[in-house]
């Protein structure tokens, strides 16, 4: 069961996180609790895997180059291929999806040559083709996601 403090931390601080020397104290003031309460509650949320981090969303392709990659893998081979692909440090967000193209992952690298090398390496390593669909335009303005935590 999430306490009201947890719920506030989850929903009210997804954007415009305080940029000041003691941000957690700032949040504590806003919520009428102590800085220690905030630190403890965030640690609990972290330990329970409800948050991945307090961090940044950077516009795509700002720090490096990335692409979304799809592969069509026979069911019997899917898990072993997925595990191989997840092992690359260039790969994040590796998901199985309900489709013939059943494996979707994002690969990031410093430059397009390196990115290309990763995809070629993966094709050799797994024996399956990759379909790369790099981002052409981003329409999304990220304001965070309002969670319905009524029954959480």
């Amino acid at each position, binding site marked *: 069961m999430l306490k009201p403090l947890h719920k506030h931390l989850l929903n009210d601080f997804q*954007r415009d996180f305080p940029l000041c020397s003691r941000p*957690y104290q700032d949040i504590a003031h806003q919520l009428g609790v102590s800085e220690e309460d905030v630190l403890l509650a965030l640690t609990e949320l972290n330990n329970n895997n409800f948050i991945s981090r307090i*961090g940044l969303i950077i516009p795509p392709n700002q720090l490096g180059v990335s692409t979304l990659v799809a592969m069509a893998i026979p069911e019997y081979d899917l898990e072993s291929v997925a595990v191989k692909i997840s092992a690359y440090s260039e790969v994040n967000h590796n998901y199985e*999806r309900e489709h013939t193209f059943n494996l979707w992952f994002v690969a990031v690298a410093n430059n397009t040559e390196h990115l290309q090398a990763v995809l070629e390496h993966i094709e050799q390593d797994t024996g399956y083709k990759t379909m790369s669909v790099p981002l052409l335009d981003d329409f999304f303005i990220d304001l965070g*996601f309002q969670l*319905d935590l009524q029954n959480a």
Partner: protein
Amino acid sequence: MLDARDRQLLERMQIGLPVCPRPYAEIGHFLAMSEAEVLERLTHLKQQGLIKRMGVIVKHHQLGYRANAMIVWNVPDTLIKQLGARISQFTFVTLCYQRPPHSQWPYNLYCMIHGKNKATVLAQLDQLNTDCNLGEFNQEVLFSRRCFKQRGALYSSNTDVSREDHG
């Protein structure tokens, strides 16, 4: 534009802000940067639009949002910006991108919906199709099954193809 120090700072921030009383000082400690410089650079990067959002990054799935769908449409290029902008207005949408079509994959407009269950997501998709007049275009819904890996984008200066050692 980003200088080398900005890059170091953004890379470090990908791991996440420490949960301790002076987190920016701690980040600075690793980069030989003062707390004031960390705060100044982050504030400036945000103003320049080089940080889209800074704050708590939640795990939808663990918080009861069990259904995650990637929806793809094949729409005329001339309409794509306008449609992308409209789709992005819906609060249940969590990403919206244009990507190039392929021979076996004609789709060029992508969005992501996180919902508590499949029925909710499909109802939200109906709403999108109706309100944005997307119903006439070829489309597919790809619900996620297993998540094999999930973490924020990591960039490193290492350019060798490398694999993580999971022990």
